[in-house]
């Protein structure tokens, strides 16, 4: 009997914790957003984050996109060759890349790179009293640290994904033309016939949501970290894990909303 009660109590505690974290996170995000419309806005921090996310993530994102596009082409070839439907490969590649692989791959890469770095930087500022020092120097730490980063993430990731889309399609193109002996003009024509504007725009909209979530997780876990170097370490891990899970979960929801008619 007691064991059952203990179990239920533990379950309840976990549920309460989840609700509490969700509430704190929502409040954190809304507070940060509310600073968007209340000046000042810290352009320096914003451009710094924009460069860090948008520019310095380019190599990783470009390489992952190139290889993913190539892999999709190879895999679908082995599947479709049995049915003599190789012609569909261009379409498969471009749809997979623009709708899913581009945003998700770029998002996961940025979560690992930028989400972790943000959590570590802000977390270190927290445990060394730098965030408290901001308050005493007429600067709202949310406005200074969080808001510009959130905006930068939301803007930079779609730009990255646009690049990832192009390179992903190029990866599929290279594999199909060089390795599978497709005709290049036919492949290109098939690509443009298959893709619609909505595929790309929804992919980019997803990317904006992912960018927001990744930077939100990085900032939130850094901002709320405690307890020295170890606390910063676990904040960094938590930021990456939470960002990756939220990214995939929201990807499912967004796909359901936009593509399931």
């Amino acid at each position, binding site marked *: 009997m007691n064991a059952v009660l203990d179990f239920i109590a533990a379950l309840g505690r976990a549920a309460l914790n989840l609700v509490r974290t969700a509430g704190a996170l929502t409040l954190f995000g809304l507070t940060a957003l509310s600073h968007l419309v209340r000046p*000042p806005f810290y352009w320096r921090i914003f451009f710094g984050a924009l460069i860090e996310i948008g520019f310095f993530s380019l190599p990783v994102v470009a390489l992952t996109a190139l290889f993913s596009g190539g892999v999709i082409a190879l895999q679908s070839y082995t599947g479709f060759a049995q049915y003599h439907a190789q012609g569909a490969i261009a379409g498969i590649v471009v749809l997979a890349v623009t709708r899913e692989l581009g945003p998700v791959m770029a998002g996961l890469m940025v979560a690992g790179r930028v989400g972790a770095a943000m959590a570590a*930087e802000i977390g*270190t*500022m927290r445990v*060394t*009293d*730098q965030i*408290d*020092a*901001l*308050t*005493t*120097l*007429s*600067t*709202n730490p949310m406005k200074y640290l969080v808001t510009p980063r959130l905006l930068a993430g939301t803007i930079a990731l779609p730009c990255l994904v646009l690049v990832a889309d192009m390179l992903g399609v190029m990866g599929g193109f290279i594999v199909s033309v060089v390795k599978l002996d497709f005709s290049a003009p036919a492949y290109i024509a098939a690509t443009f016939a298959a893709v619609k504007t909505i595929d790309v725009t929804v992919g980019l909209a997803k990317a904006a949501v992912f960018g927001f979530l990744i930077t939100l997780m990085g900032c939130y876990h850094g901002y709320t970290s405690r307890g020295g170097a170890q606390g910063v370490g676990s904040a960094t891990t938590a930021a990456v894990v939470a960002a990756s899970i939220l990214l995939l979960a929201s990807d499912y929801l967004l796909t359901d909303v936009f593509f399931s008619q």
Partner: protein
Amino acid sequence: MIQSTPKIRIRGLCKAFGPKIVLDGIDLDVMPGTSMVIIGGSGSGKSVLLRCILGLIPADAGTIEIDGVNVLTLPPRRREEVIETIGMLFQNGALFDSLSVWENVAFGLLAAGRRHGRRPSRAEARATAGRMLEQVGLDPSVGALSPAELSGGMQKRVGLARAIAGQPDILFFDEPTTGLDPIMGAVIDGLIVDCVRKLGSTAIAITHDMASAQRIGDQAAMLYKGKLIWQGPAASLLNSGNPMVDQFTHGRREGPISMELRR
């Protein structure tokens, strides 16, 4: 008339972290233009007291009045305005390591200017920062370095320069001279006294150094077990007549405080 309202007036301030009671009913008055030195054992809650006044840690109970206004019940925006008039030197310096030394020193000037619409140019701010660095005994060329390139004592002095750069009404110093050599310590003490005498600022300083406490302080108070067990003129710290203060200021192993600890 002005003299009759304390600049800072604390009544019944309590703060506990879980079961651990750190502040247990603090009553403290600091008059305008004077400085208060707070002494007390390591871990007795001195830094927590300053953080509570700044609102960095929420207090559990009590009132904190600055210029007669209870800051604990103010709405956040008004409270920020009050906090803006307080300069704080943190115990560990708390310099922004992503910025250069001069940007650290000028940070408050630029931020306050941005808020009030008369922001100094970066060149002006840099010049001011250079002057502040000279005041704390650092060469202005240090301004171009990053905080990580400084020694601990230098970081402390940069933190001090940052705290006083905006000429705030109220100054908090958390162990301003810890980690400095005796001569530099005396220079910094003199600088703090100057801030209070010349600018008319009100100061609260935490220190473990009795010589420094007597140089800086007009008044002194000792924090022990969450309460201010003694308050009096800083000049009488070494012969206060209170056995606990005596033991503390003379650094004796035997006395009422060690008895408590052993029990």
